[in-house]
């Protein structure tokens, strides 16, 4: 089973011809960039292509290439002038990408219907299914407010649910861009409250309203002190949940009794996380944190007396 589809020279040559026809006079360096190969590969490709054509192979039938000047022009290659069909996996990549684009518009946007039609048409034609859902549970209103703020360089007032502190706070932010880690979307912003750059998980923004800029924001805050804590945790039960919570990559080799290190930004997060894992994991180090877990659990237990 091959993971990487080899970029065979034949395929590249077949793709090179329609590219050259459309981009007459293109520089060799540009071709190297567009095809992600070295310039000497480009020259090898052109030299090989130079010998190709229709049977007969006289100058009348051969592809006519000129590239001595460092710029390429092509003639007499009509047979290969159309780009090749997209393969089903290429179609898959495009369809998923289109679904992401569609979801990044608010539902009322006129682009959405066009994209929806295109996705359906591509999917039908290629027999490649679009993903059943592609959701990050973000409402169209929020999506629209965020997109407008970024596009028009306006600020937002958001109410944000901080998961680790379990608090909802109101913040004024200047959003720059949406980042996507494949699982969640994050709004990369400058936060007036923290006077620092922050990313906000889009699905935890409970509401967002556009405001006019209050003053010029020269984000010139001192970098925050690194408040990381190194924690040692023992796995006390074979639980997939522990592995996934701490993003342990070697899932297959982790066993009950193992101790691993984790570096966390927020001690509150680790206390609550360990508690929510029941007794599948325990804090070993540092001792203050270990005793804090015990104290907090005891306090919760006191609720039941």
């Amino acid at each position, binding site marked *: 089973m091959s993971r990487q589809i080899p970029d065979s020279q034949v395929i590249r040559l077949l*793709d090179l011809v329609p590219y050259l026809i459309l981009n007459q006079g293109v520089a060799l360096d540009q071709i190297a960039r*567009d095809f992600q190969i070295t310039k000497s590969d480009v020259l090898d490709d052109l030299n090989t292509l130079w010998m190709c054509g229709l049977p007969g192979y006289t100058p009348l039938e051969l592809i006519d290439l000129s590239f001595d000047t460092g710029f390429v022009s092509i003639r007499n290659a009509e047979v290969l002038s159309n*780009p090749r069909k997209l393969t089903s*996996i290429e179609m898959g990549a495009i369809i998923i990408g289109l679904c992401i684009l569609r979801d*990044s518009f608010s539902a009322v946007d006129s682009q959405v219907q066009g994209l929806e039609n295109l996705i359906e048409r591509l999917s039908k034609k290629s027999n490649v299914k679009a993903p059943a859902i592609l959701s990050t549970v973000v409402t169209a209103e929020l999506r629209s407010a965020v997109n407008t703020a970024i596009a028009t360089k306006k600020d937002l007032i958001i109410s944000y649910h901080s998961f680790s502190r379990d608090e909802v706070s109101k913040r004024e932010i200047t959003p720059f861009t949406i980042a*996507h*880690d494949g699982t969640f979307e994050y709004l990369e912003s400058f936060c007036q409250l923290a006077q620092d750059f922050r990313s906000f998980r889009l699905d935890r923004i409970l509401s967002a309203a556009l405001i006019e800029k209050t003053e010029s924001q020269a984000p010139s805050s001192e970098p925050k002190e690194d408040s990381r804590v190194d924690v040692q945790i023992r796995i006390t039960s074979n639980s997939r949940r522990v592995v996934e919570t701490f993003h342990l990559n070697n899932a*297959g080799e982790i*066993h009950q009794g193992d101790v691993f290190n984790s570096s966390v930004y927020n001690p509150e997060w680790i206390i609550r996380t360990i508690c929510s894992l029941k007794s599948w994991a*325990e804090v070993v180090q540092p001792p203050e944190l270990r005793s804090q877990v015990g104290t907090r659990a005891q306090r919760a237990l006191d609720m039941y007396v």
Partner: protein
Amino acid sequence: MRTVSRKSERLVNLVIALLATKRYITKSEIFRTIEGYEGSNESMERMFERDKDELRALGIEIEVSGLDPLFDDEVGYRILAENFEMDRKGYSANEIAYMSLAAQLWKDASLSDVSQKALRKLSAVSGPADIAEIPAFAPVILTAPLFLREIINGITDRRVVEFKYLDSEMKTKLRKVHVYSYFSLRGFWYFSGLDVDKSENRTFRCDRVVGELAISKKANSYEIPADYEPDTTFSDISVSTQAVLRVRVGRGSQLRSLASTIESGEEFDLIQIAYSSEEEMISLILWHLDDVCVISPETLKISVVQALKRLVKAHV
């Protein structure tokens, strides 16, 4: 100095000849006219068989003429333009631009090499897409599982996939699945379909696949039920239990958003929540520590108290 690959040259010439011909051309015509076929008849035959296989492996469909019993004809070959070329008239310039943009989203992500090839084909349709014409939206970078291509191939060609899957007790088992559907939900990628050994439909989370995912050579091994809908709720809503919880005023916004009723109090509010997975409910309550207290049901209360006792004991 010129470096020329004789083999690439021969294969490109073969594609050009098979694409240009209106009728099927025979092997002897190929050997006679196409540059690069030389040597004994036997070695040319072998060469041609290999070339044909190679082109097919690259996704190029070669048509073979039907053997007509009435004629003692040699087998003929050709490539149909509609199987080879992109239907460029089928898309508007705007659609090509969107497709290019969609491919660009995969930059540095799992399908980036595939997308690069798609982009280079698309850029030969209408030149580089003019992204400026498209309304502004934030760039999206995504990381889907590396084996997403096998999942898509599996569904498209209906090939069986096999992989090791991590269960909740941390044991890995080999699973064999007819993939029907794939999706991304709340940040995770999933695929679903028939678990062959269990004869039941199951959903798998991509990051719980340990190691590689293998795909069968044989295509069309199963049918995807026409009415198949993946279960994306992951819970059996029909068996839900009602819990009554005391939640400290101003806290527990996640619990509050799930609540069916909220009764305001002085220090604590009384909320009612329906849940289907006790396991998840316990975790959620424990997360909230002393901001939440279970009133009912009794079993839930006992489980939470037991978990807290064990936590205290483990952390003295």
